[in-house]
């Protein structure tokens, strides 16, 4: 699988063509930060009561 960078560079914006090898590397630092933020929030507030069985 291509890296996100490789994949992004393979996108031909001029021709509006997207390659089919989207990167699924979810360990990207940006996503890690987002995930940590989400985990902290969920730990603090939990889930809606309707979803807690």
């Amino acid at each position, binding site marked *: 699988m291509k890296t996100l*960078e490789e994949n992004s560079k393979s996108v031909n914006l001029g021709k509006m063509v997207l390659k089919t090898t989207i990167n699924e590397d979810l360990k990207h630092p940006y996503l890690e930060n987002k995930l940590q*933020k989400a985990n902290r929030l969920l730990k603090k507030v939990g889930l809606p009561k309707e979803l807690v069985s």
Partner: protein
Amino acid sequence: MTKDTYPIEVSPHFVAYDFISDGRKGKILKGIRYTQTKFSNVWNLGFGDIDIHTGKINDVIVSDNGDSEKILATVARTCIEFSEHFPEAMILAIGSTSARTRLYQMGINRNFTEISELFLIWGLLDDSWEVFEKNKNYQALLVKRK
């Protein structure tokens, strides 16, 4: 979804979605990533512009490409696609800024009829979840397929 959306490219495991915004400032590559949190079946939605040089997703930049409605409808479409493959998933959206959270909220407001037919929607207000109501400013949003 009946609204106009951009063609999306979906990754093999249905957790990454890319599309190209085409507006007054040109073509901008956008990325949406669903990542699993530590909480069972809760997935975090990450969305932003993809820097084609670094591959980094920038979720703070305001591209102002004049197509926000189409972009938000496209993000909503990825939620539908994702939830078809992960029907038990709860999707959490926390904006990188309060403005970005409002943008997500605007997306739900604008597409409320279609989204509410398919999803249960909650908003986080004062650190407490409540059933989503239009025109409230929430800290975060959570949706789950009905």
